[in-house]
């Protein structure tokens, strides 16, 4: 396995240790049949800007192992978004568009000699999704589904992601409005 994927795997473990959030995801599109179900770890925080909306910032690591041993794809997107709850309370169903930058991406392949070939890229990240925000006790929970695409080198890696997360929020909404 390449150094790049190893590095991102270590970052993945670090993010998990940082009490981060987890998701499962699937690459979709041409020539993605060879990839297994992927998994990701990400830290996401929101700052309330209105009763209904939060500005969110998210960094994560997504890893997609290949069915072929020693191959796979990993990405590290940093995204900013706007989470808008439909009922205007800051909880319940929400929609969230996101834009960002893929800080590091690598696809590891094996050439005809079995030697590792790392294809490294960055690229623009676009995502849109929705979910449901609720609380269990004082713990805010976020169940979310989103579609995400990373665009680089004239191609795109597209994925669908399902996550259940404990969300972090900085700042408070005004109560009793």
């Amino acid at each position, binding site marked *: 396995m390449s150094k790049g994927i190893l590095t991102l795997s270590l970052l993945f473990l670090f993010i998990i240790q940082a009490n981060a959030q987890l998701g499962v995801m699937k690459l979709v599109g041409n020539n993605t049949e060879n990839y297994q179900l992927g998994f990701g770890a990400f830290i996401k925080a929101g700052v309330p800007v209105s009763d209904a909306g939060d500005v969110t910032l998210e960094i994560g690591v997504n890893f997609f192992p290949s069915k072929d041993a020693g191959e796979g794809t990993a990405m590290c997107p940093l995204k900013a978004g706007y989470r808008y709850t439909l009922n205007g309370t800051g909880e319940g169903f929400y929609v969230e568009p996101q834009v960002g930058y893929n800080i590091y991406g690598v696809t590891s392949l094996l050439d005809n000699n079995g030697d590792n070939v790392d*294809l490294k890229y960055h690229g623009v990240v676009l995502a849109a999704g929705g979910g449901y925000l609720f609380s269990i006790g004082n713990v805010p929970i976020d169940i979310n589904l989103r579609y995400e695409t990373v665009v680089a080198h004239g191609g795109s890696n597209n994925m669908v992601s399902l996550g259940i997360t404990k969300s972090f929020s900085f700042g408070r909404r005004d109560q009793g409005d």
Partner: protein
Amino acid sequence: MRFYVIALSMAIFLSSCLKQSIPDAMLGKNSGGQGKVTATLSYTINGNAVSISVNDADNQITNPYYTLGCSKYGGYYSLDGISNSGETAFSFYTDSLAVGNYKYLGTYGDMFFIDYYNTAEYAHAPSDSMSFNITSYNNGHISGNFSGVLTPLITASTINNIFGDPGSVLITNGSFTNVPVFY
């Protein structure tokens, strides 16, 4: 707010219309969106024509061998073609294939290039050579031309090969187009 959601949704939709994944785009697979590509290789060997043509060359059968392609190995790329008359091979000794001239001289040591109806043609004599020009390398496909002077191997032996007349095999009018480069 609604405007931004619609704008972002459109951006995602349009970006998803890109037909290649990022790795495929970086490797130049799928012909850069050009559809099926026909790869060809042709030349004359002492005036006799040899020709190879492969439709949809990016998706040709590779087991046990592909018909025409160029593969990356450790430290070199190997262009290989199979025709009714036999095999044609040329190695580009580089870690990163690029447009340019690649030449093999007989003084470097014996090197096989062509099997023509069961006669192997080598760069063997000091005056022998094979010269390949890659004139374009786009979307994972190479095109160019080549020529050479070779010596036939008459009898293969574990101790000493017996070669024919030095420089008696002329390779002329060599050209190749849209040969896929495989990783």
